[in-house]
């Protein structure tokens, strides 16, 4: 037993403390963040990999989108590939920690940067990438620019190996996936939150990977949307036997999230039409479009204000041509 004379205890304590602090600092420098993404089993054989809240930045490595996977008898279906090649590798490693079964394919739910830029990691392992034809089209028309911005924000090192990959498999309709000995469906509702946005349903557990259609506690993004189509899609979701929802962003949700998103979109539409009728100028819109009920949702200060501007301009244009609803 080490006996420390009283007179020395304070000194020893100080040395120990600073030693720990130093070790801690070294550890921090060596591994600034825990790069493992842990899979959470949300229902039997269905796993969610939750993204970080907030905007894409160097702190969260841009890993703000959710991903997930479904383990069947003969394989795994993955949903979404993350923000970068490295992120894709981390997601695949998470799958590997849960099961050795082969990943038969990965479905990309919608064409936004935090869901598709990890595809190179999947492709490398021979995992086919499946996207709706219209998501692929949207990706091809704009995602190169996103990649440039990601490189600027996250740095070339974090983004190394990341590229925009065209899907191996494109589809147009709702369809069943037969590949893993477990009934899984890819659901397409027409142009909704985005032109090719789809949801992935695990029939056995009633878990829905909602992709762009639903965000939990985060402002939904209207940029790629057709508001009427999205409302129709949400109504259709009500008719499905759903037990839990893995949203595109945010924590695991109950089907009540469908109502939240419906309410947000309806209130936003109503408020903007009011502002338009009142002759508001676009510069006034972001402030005037405050919706306090949703002020605590993630990205209220950014995405909500942008939603208001985008929709205001859209409605203004529709009124100019007196064309009801729809997307330009």
């Amino acid at each position, binding site marked *: 037993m080490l006996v420390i004379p009283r007179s020395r205890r304070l000194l020893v304590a100080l040395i120990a403390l600073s030693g720990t602090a130093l070790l801690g600092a070294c550890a921090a420098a060596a591994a600034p963040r825990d790069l493992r993404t842990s899979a959470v089993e949300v229902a039997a054989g269905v796993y969610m990999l939750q993204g970080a809240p907030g905007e894409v930045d160097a702190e969260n490595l841009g890993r703000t989108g959710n991903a997930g996977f479904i383990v069947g008898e003969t394989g795994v279906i993955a949903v979404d590939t993350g923000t970068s090649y490295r992120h894709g590798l981390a997601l695949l490693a998470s799958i590997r920690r849960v099961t050795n079964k082969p990943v038969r394919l990965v479905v990309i739910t919608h064409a936004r940067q935090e869901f598709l830029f990890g595809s190179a990691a999947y492709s490398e392992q021979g995992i086919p990438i499946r996207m709706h034809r219209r998501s692929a089209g949207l990706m091809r028309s704009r995602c190169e620019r996103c990649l440039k911005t990601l490189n600027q924000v996250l740095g070339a090192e974090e983004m190394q190996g990341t590229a925009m990959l065209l899907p191996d498999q494109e589809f147009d309709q709702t369809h069943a996936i037969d590949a893993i000995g477990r009934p899984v469906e890819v659901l397409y509702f027409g142009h909704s939150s985005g032109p090719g946005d789809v949801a992935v349903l695990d029939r056995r557990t009633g878990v829905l990977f909602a992709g762009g259609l639903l965000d939990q506690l985060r402002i939904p993004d209207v940029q790629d949307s057709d508001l009427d189509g999205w409302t129709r899609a949400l109504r259709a979701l009500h008719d499905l036997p759903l037990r839990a929802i893995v949203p595109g962003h945010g924590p695991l949700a109950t089907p009540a999230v469908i109502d939240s998103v419906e309410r947000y979109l309806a209130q936003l539409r109503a408020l903007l039409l009011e502002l338009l009728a009142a002759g508001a100028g676009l510069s006034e819109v972001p402030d005037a479009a405050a919706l306090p009920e949703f002020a605590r949702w993630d990205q209220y200060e950014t995405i909500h204000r942008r939603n208001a501007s985008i929709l205001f301009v859209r409605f203004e244009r529709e009124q100019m041509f007196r064309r009801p609803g729809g997307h*330009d």
Partner: protein
Amino acid sequence: MNIAPIARACRSAAGVLLLFALCVGARAEIRAEGNPEASPIWQKVRASLFQSRPIAAASDELISLDAPTRAEDAAIVPISIRTRLVQTPARYIDKVYLIIDNNPSPISAIFRFTQLSGRADIETRVRVDDYTHVRAIAETNDGRLYMVTRFVKASGGCSAPPSKDAQAAQATLGRMKFRVDGDASGKQPVLAQLMISHPNDSGLAMNQVSRLFTPAHFVRQVNITYAGELVLSADVDFSISENPNFRFYFVPRGDGELKAEVIDSEDLRFESALPYRRHD
């Protein structure tokens, strides 16, 4: 052989290239807000537009500029120029220049006002290419210049692709609509808005799928008259957002027609008129 269009194309191409060169040269400094006077592009624009004429800092009493500190959508940034000066023959604002330093074409608009403007206010939407100073410079009838500056942060990100549906745009090209917010009390000046359907393509945007640059096709002049007299005239270019949109004032002396004449870079002309009756 008609060389005029070729000459014009060469001039505009050279102009664009020159502006590109100016921008590339100044790239290192643009991210930080810094001192607005120090912007090298501003120094060049200032010299070309105003030579060594003094430019005073504008007080809010004369002209104010409202622009978002952080642009929600870099392709549609609302810019609001408000003046407190009532346009009278003794003192009026003759022109307002809108400069966006780090845009490919910094001189984004030159607005000319008249007595019939009532107020030299103008609100429009612009494309902002990068973090930049935005300036409104008022020139009063005595030749004095006053400037107000704002800094706008606009980042690339995942915006909607530039040319969403070229065919649809072609079908509605040049369609225009006036909206007048006159109220029954006959309060003047009357607020009006002109919306023009036009892609306003810069010629600098590459279609990521076809790898081709969408050719330049943009509104270059807007003339608004009331009862045949000029209210507002604007020299503009592709810094103005797709579907150019302008809010302005006019003083209706008697009943008449509010009329817009728009000319674009292909020399296409569009017209629209709205009859207006005073409510008093």
